[in-house]
């Protein structure tokens, strides 16, 4: 596949992700913030997001398994996940976090466990899609092209 085809695929894929609600305008903003002085900005931020989320989901699993669930702690973790997913535009993940926080407020263990499953699911989906997007980026760069910006 030549550079132009790769670039088109990149644009189309990003558009689809936004249309399907996986990503929102915040992700668009991240792409716009990427420039020559910081060509890996989006990858950098999303990598931190993956690391932090893996850790948070792990913590959430452990916290919800305990005899006496500390909902304040659960809520704090979900609040953080909501914030970071919101910052990178991972819309579906963020939306599950909102429901998750409601379960915490109600001290609803079953609801919380369901939300945890849901958030893990949405996270895994968006993670796969973002990883594919980055692989397209790598292919474009390897073929000597530049990453298209959103408004092109």
């Amino acid at each position, binding site marked *: 596949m030549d550079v132009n085809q790769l670039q088109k695929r990149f644009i189309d894929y990003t558009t689809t992700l936004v249309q399907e609600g996986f990503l929102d305008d*915040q992700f668009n903003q991240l792409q*716009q*913030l990427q420039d020559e002085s910081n060509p890996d900005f989006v990858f950098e*931020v999303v990598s931190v997001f993956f690391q932090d989320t893996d850790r948070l989901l792990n913590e959430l699993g452990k916290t919800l398994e305990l005899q006496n669930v500390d909902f304040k702690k659960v809520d704090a973790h979900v*609040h953080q996940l909501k914030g970071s997913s919101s*910052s990178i*535009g991972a819309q579906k993940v963020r939306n599950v976090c909102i429901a998750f926080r409601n379960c915490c407020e109600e001290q609803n263990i079953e609801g919380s466990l369901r939300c945890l499953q849901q958030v893990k699911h949405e996270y895994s989906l968006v993670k796969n899609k973002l990883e594919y997007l980055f692989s397209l980026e790598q292919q474009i760069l390897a073929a000597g092209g530049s990453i298209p910006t959103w408004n092109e």
Partner: protein
Amino acid sequence: MMQGNIWVSPSSRGLVQSMTLVVKFELNLSGGVDFIEPGPPSNSQLRGLRVILADDDGVNRLVTRKLLEKLGCHVSAVSSGFECLSALGTAGSSFQIILLDIHMPEMDGFEVAMRVRKFQSRSCPLIVALTASADEDVWQKCLQVGMNGLIRKPVLLEGMAAELQRVLQANIGM
């Protein structure tokens, strides 16, 4: 009449140390205030601005920092209230704006603001809160502890620029 609030902060000896008047105006908190003069806002005011950013979340720190740098600000980013106070206390550091995430563990943004305002005037450095909350009460509390502005999360470039400019304009010459 104007749905405001007035309160008095007493000193340790019970004497009046300061009085604060809060009056309710229409404030668009969704991304900044709109009653600035029409036309594209000039970001020249923000270039070279020395900002310290405190947010405990790594992703948010990276994104907010990049937004500020895009506006031309010089940014120091820390991950806690303690680090923020410590950086402010360092001799020779002179930040013009403190950008504070309200919800930080151990020491939240309100606490940091209170401690900063204890020793310094209400306008130097300027303090702007970062919060995802849309609560009216949050804004009231921000004013109470001596903050000058508020930016809603998730942060967008235009909203940040607008609020920083508003806060700078409102405090010129103080």
